[in-house]
């Protein structure tokens, strides 16, 4: 059977390289000058430079035609703030709601849950124009508060549906046992239900953070450059004179970092659920 497993290993390596290569090349590009990037044929051998990173951090882009202000660090800050607050707000609202949907069968329960999910199906463009008008009249245009609120359309259904599934898997008997021990409903929810659904909450938080981070259209229309996240901010590199690929690459590398950090942090909660084993009671 050796031939088979060698072939399999080769196939897996090729597929892996195929998918990872763009990422790898972007990281390489972030250390190259524009000249190196545009050279034909492309080569992985070059003299690395930190020029792209320093330009981003210092906020100045020195090109042949002059110096240009770059506000990428602000964009990074905005992305982090918007995504983090959106996820936190969603967790506060949706986790108890998910519990209610999981435990109590109330009239129209399924219908309400599905309606909330359907927000994800609707194209944002559908609601953007009316939303812009509302925001402007309410004074929410160009505010963090406004954007975080709109981002709930993305994050809330996700958290609700994922965490509901995990609450359904927590055995009701375990909760009843804790109540019979003399603990109140709230104590049971905080000390038993939430810890046992932690993998789901972690997964939902991570996923909604990524979706919120990647959002482009809401941030583009409903705010000015003051609160724009990295998705919109990356356009600044498409200048009148040239497209600064090196800076774009460096900007991309920067933008991956917060999500990567969050993923590493939540990873242990995702795995924890598999090892406890007794979630089903």
């Amino acid at each position: 059977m050796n031939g088979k497993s060698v072939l399999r290993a080769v196939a897996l390596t090729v597929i892996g390289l195929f998918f990872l290569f763009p990422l790898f090349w972007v990281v390489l590009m972030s250390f190259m000058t524009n000249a190196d990037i545009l050279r034909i044929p492309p080569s992985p051998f070059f003299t690395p430079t930190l020029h792209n990173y320093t330009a981003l951090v210092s906020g100045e882009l020195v090109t042949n035609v002059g110096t240009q202000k770059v506000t990428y660090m602000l964009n990074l800050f905005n992305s982090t703030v918007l995504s983090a607050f959106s996820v936190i707000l969603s967790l506060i609202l949706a986790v108890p709601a998910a519990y209610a949907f999981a435990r109590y069968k109330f009239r129209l329960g399924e219908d309400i849950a599905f309606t909330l999910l359907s927000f994800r199906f609707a194209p944002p463009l559908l609601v953007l124009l009316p939303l812009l008008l509302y925001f402007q009249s309410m004074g929410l245009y160009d505010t963090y508060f406004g954007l975080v609120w709109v981002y709930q359309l993305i994050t809330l259904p996700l958290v609700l549906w994922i965490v509901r599934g995990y609450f359904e898997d927590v055995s009701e008997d375990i909760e009843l046992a804790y109540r019979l021990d003399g603990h109140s409903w709230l104590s049971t929810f905080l000390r038993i239900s939430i810890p046992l659904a932690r993998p789901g909450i972690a997964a939902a938080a991570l996923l909604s953070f990524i979706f919120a981070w990647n959002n482009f259209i809401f941030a583009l229309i409903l705010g000015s450059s003051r609160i724009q996240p990295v998705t919109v901010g990356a356009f600044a590199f498409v200048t009148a004179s040239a497209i600064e690929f090196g800076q774009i690459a460096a900007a991309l590398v920067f933008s991956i970092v917060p999500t990567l950090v969050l993923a590493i942090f939540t990873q242990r909660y995702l795995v924890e659920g598999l090892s406890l084993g007794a979630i089903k009671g």
Partner: protein
Amino acid sequence: MPFLEITGLKKSFRNHEIIRDLSLDMERGEFLVVFGPSGCGKTVLLRLIAGMLRPDAGDISIDGQSVTEVNPEYRDVGMAFQNYALYPHMTAFDNIASPLRSRHVKEAEIKARVNETARMLRIDHVLDHLPKALSQGQKQRTALARSLVGRPSVVLLDDPLRNVDAKIRYEMRFELPRVLRGFESTVIYVTQDYKEAMALGDRVAVLVDGAFRQIGSPLDVYDVPSTMRIARLFGDPPINLVPVHPVTANAGIEINVAGATVRLPPDGADFAGRECMFGIRSENVAVSLEANDGIPVTLDAITPLNNRVVMLLRGAEGTELFASCPQGGPMDRLRGQYQAWAKLDLAHAHFFDRGDGVRI
């Protein structure tokens, strides 16, 4: 004044009545077994007593006080679940300590009481393990310890031995009463195993279709079952039930069992002419390979069962009867089909009305 009093309990789910007009009285310190086939409503009943569900009608009182409207955490009820329901993210010690922690008992006293209870149940050496590191038997004892440590008024044991292997299950029949006696608790023990029910209970309450059809001592439910259904639930193999139509003849009552006429003792006068089911347990059917005045049958199969031998008999008209006898006799080594004669010990005969199954 009964310690636990349940009156007229009713509970339905989606127009399906699970508990119908159920009533029960228990004295303090009594050990009652609730026995019934699957689907009879045992789990719903326990949840009503624990407070997880609210009844549609009826009342539950503990020590003179109604608890029907009281939340589970204030009812002073302890419960051990079929699937243990241990908190997977806490050690065995913390699991058992939970009822004491909620009452803000001092840490030193918690330690003493948890260790004492654990010692009684022989799990004191695994208290620092997480549930996933415990064996089935240890998990079950931990669940039991947790339900007892707070010395609640009422202890509910929901088929705690169901998922435990056969040897430990048997041992617990002797150990459980011993442990519970140390706690002086009023216990409701639910099981689907009739042998467990008869071994453990002072009284056995048979729950069928949402209500108690008979509450009595093990002797009562076995020897004098009030319905056909209850008669079938006790005994392995189940009681033989043959439809008969008793007629008065030859200065007595006669019935036709498996093609043979059987004369009944004269005190069965009031059911002549009624459509009945005649019931006789396998241990009251004696089989012989030598011709006698019993019913002629073919002995189709001999299956040993613990220390007895169970025999499958086939009579005329295809009637199937089971007989059993103690091991160590001539039946032990038979294999195959034989001509035989079956004699019925009519002192242990049961008669039930064929329509409603009630005992005559």
